[in-house]
């Protein structure tokens, strides 16, 4: 019996090492939820600004600038949330935050993201503003899909959902803000809740 127990723990240790070395398991669901909430706050602010603009038409450039700044701020805030909570979580489960798996995850997300941001900038520069929501959702979905090979499988569903949403947005540009709020807000909250219930909740010190 004792020997059998030893063999089982040995197999379990092998499986754990394989998982820990190749996938980033420290991503925090809480960080995802907060990022989603931030996105929803941003989207509602943007909505009010746009409604306000419709009533008292001031210079459209001023509104565009305000919206872009808001977008950049929300993006930075969401990124910080995810990084902070993931850092905290890896401390808690005692795995190095910046290990080989995290580096691979980072690179595989960053490369399509940076390449895609050139499309984003081109669209911006040529003032095809109605395309921005679709472009950002699709680029983000592709980046997450690439990263999903180095983290838990749930991220692949998130990636597909973002890409599909982005594709729908191309044909329904009038609802761009609504799609943005769904893609970056609702989907992140959903993803975060799933990660939290499946993994994070069971974390032990």
């Amino acid at each position, binding site marked *: 019996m004792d020997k059998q127990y030893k063999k089982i723990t040995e197999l379990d240790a092998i499986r754990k090492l394989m998982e*820990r*070395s190749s996938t980033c398991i420290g991503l925090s669901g809480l960080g995802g939820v907060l990022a989603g909430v931030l996105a929803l706050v941003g989207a509602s602010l943007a909505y009010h600004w746009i409604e306000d603009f419709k009533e008292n038409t001031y210079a459209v450039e001023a509104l565009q600038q305000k919206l872009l700044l808001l977008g950049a701020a929300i993006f930075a805030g969401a990124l910080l949330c995810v990084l902070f909570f993931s850092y905290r979580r890896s401390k808690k489960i005692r795995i*190095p935050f910046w290990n080989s798996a995290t580096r691979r995850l980072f690179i595989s997300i960053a490369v399509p993201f940076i390449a895609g941001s050139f499309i984003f900038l081109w669209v911006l520069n040529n003032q095809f503003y109605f395309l921005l929501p679709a472009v950002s959702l699709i680029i983000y979905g592709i980046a997450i899909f690439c990263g999903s090979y180095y983290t838990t499988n749930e991220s692949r569903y998130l990636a597909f959902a973002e890409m599909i949403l982005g594709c729908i947005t191309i044909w329904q540009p009038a609802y761009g803000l609504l799609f943005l709020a769904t893609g970056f807000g609702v989907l992140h909250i959903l993803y975060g809740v799933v990660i939290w219930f499946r993994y994070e909740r069971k974390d032990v010190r």
Partner: protein
Amino acid sequence: MTEPNPIKNLNKIFDHRLRLGIMSILAVNKTYSFNDLKDLLQVTDGNLASHIKILEENNYLSVIKGFIGRKPNTLYAITREGKDALKQHIETLAKLIDTMD
């Protein structure tokens, strides 16, 4: 006919849990660096190096020496031989557990 002794298929080189650990990590990663192995397995330099040497001598892993700036950065990769040996070892382990159930 008697059953062949299944224990015979357990690999002696994988008796040590550190060597088994190194091989498990290399089996699912194209390459893995010395420092990352050290972090994940939480062992000292000397200890890790000596077990890697044994695996290297048995042709279970290959060494890729490199540098990041001036700091040496040594990478390891599993060989075909090492992968087969690990596979057989794990399958034997799993079989043993099955027969004991």
